């Protein structure tokens, strides 16, 4: 896996595989039987055995916005920094689904993971401790951790507000001047925010509570790469949200793990 494969992925944008139906001029979903795996096998890869070629085991570029579609466990895994609604990764997932392919994460799971109250209710149902949440139009009990709840907000842009003045300004910002409601979570005095990255359900950090959450999050949503944001307080560790991860924010060990997952793909 190297720049060539990345380039191949770029060249094989999913829009190209929406085949035109001759005679109608209307685009239709391509016949799954004629679907070409995305990205295609690497030219010149070695180690071909029984029709399966393994990709070169060189580290992928992991450059900004790079998108990798890998075949794994009888389905496709889409690896991207962000799976936000209406992005290229989201539409890549959607187009694979409409071809009848099994793909992780699914488009439904992506929405569930990134819409905070929905995410927390699903994770809570798995027995993982999560923050209590509420929806407000204007006021919150202080101190609080607040998130936008609209298309223009990103979960990575959270804020802890401790006084009315700061809360008012922050709420104005994340609600687009009061146009949308927002999500809040009580923030305990003495609490702290902790962030961990999960890669295919595993974390570099050995803490059992974090590892259990990473595993549950992967089982529920199938996100190959995700940032988990927690509130730590008095020995408890409550999940607050899931958010995208920039490749540039991965440490060396995390990059190596992610690269290993991407490189060990097998192409039919």
């Amino acid at each position, binding site marked *: 896996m190297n720049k060539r494969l990345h380039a191949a992925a770029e060249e094989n944008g999913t829009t190209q595989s929406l085949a*035109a139906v001759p005679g109608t*001029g*209307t685009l239709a979903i391509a016949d799954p039987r004629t679907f070409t795996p995305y990205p295609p096998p690497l030219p010149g890869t070695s180690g071909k055995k029984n029709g399966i070629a393994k990709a070169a085991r060189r580290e992928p570029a992991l450059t900004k916005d790079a998108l990798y579609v890998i075949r794994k466990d009888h389905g496709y895994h889409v690896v991207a920094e962000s799976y936000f609604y*209406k992005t290229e990764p989201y539409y890549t997932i959607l187009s694979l689904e409409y071809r009848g392919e099994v793909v992780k994460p699914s488009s439904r799971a992506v929405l569930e993971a990134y819409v905070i*109250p929905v995410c927390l*209710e699903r994770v809570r149902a798995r027995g993982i401790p999560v923050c209590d949440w509420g*929806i407000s139009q204007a006021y919150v009990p202080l101190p609080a951790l607040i998130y936008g*709840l*609209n298309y223009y907000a990103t979960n990575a842009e959270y804020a802890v507000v401790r006084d009315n003045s700061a809360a008012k300004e922050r709420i104005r910002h994340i609600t687009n001047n009061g146009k949308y*409601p927002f999500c809040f979570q009580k923030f305990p005095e003495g609490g702290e925010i902790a962030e961990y990255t999960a890669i295919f359900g595993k974390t570099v950090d050995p803490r059992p509570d974090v590892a259990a959450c990473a595993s549950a999050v992967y089982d529920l949503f199938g996100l190959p790469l995700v940032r988990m944001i927690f509130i730590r307080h008095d020995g408890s560790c409550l999940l607050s949200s899931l958010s995208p991860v920039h490749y540039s924010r991965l440490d060396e060990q995390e990059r190596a793990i992610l690269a290993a997952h991407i490189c060990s793909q097998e192409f039919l």
Partner: protein
Amino acid sequence: MSRLGIFVDRKTLASAEQLNALIRCRDVAEQMGHAAEFIFPVDIQKIRKMDALFIRARTDPMNVTYVAAKMAEFNGIPVIDDPRSIQVCGDKVNMYSALLKKGIALPKTVFLSKKDVTVERVASLFDTLGTPLVLKEPSTSFSQRVERVRDVAGFFRVARRFIKLSDWIVVQQYIESKYDWRVGFLDKQLLYACKYTIPSVTFKIQASVNGHIVYCGVESVPPDRIPPHVVALGIAAADAIGDGLYGVDIKNNNGDACVIEVNDNPSLESGEDQYYPDVYGKIVSHLFAK
């Protein structure tokens, strides 16, 4: 006594007609012997206590209506609009994909990734789909972010704006018509029908013209005056999305009908249901029958 929650967002209430329609819905539910109450976003936890939920706020997979729909789903509460309908109808790429998969007649439609917006590709789209073209940002509603373009330069002007909001945009063949059919379906059954007469100053059912909002005319149409092939196409389109409440927009030029879009959370406040006085009664009955 069953409890119906009507989820509303006062931030998206835009007119007295919308307010009156909500009150009418509540009154109908109460006349049918149910308790009905409005649920606002801040009261979202109340959804757990309801027996059914009817969402009457602007739906989107990234806003609070999706949370409301999922809360209902998690608690086994029948809901209109259900989360999947919000996800599919809220995104025109998803919605048209669902229709194409079922072979529903549409204008010629292309999904264009922002990385494919090149002069050559755009020129080929004019060759393939004709002139003018209609560009849609996928999460458009009420005809916002729907533009007609006549040349490559115009295409780029509009596309540049739309790709700030979405990595893919929808490009469609333009089909001229004086009106669109809006046919409402509930669980694949005809619920109401009307004509949206397109204002002469625009090609959309709603547009801002010289700073003024121009709305389409609404003419309710009784069942015996709806062309049967329009109803059949509408049922097929609704069925491609799910079993919820949908408003299907159809152009019917010279008997050659095609679907323009399928809307979840269709408007019911502008006289769409004049010939169908039992629309809310059917919706309430459907929810509690589940």
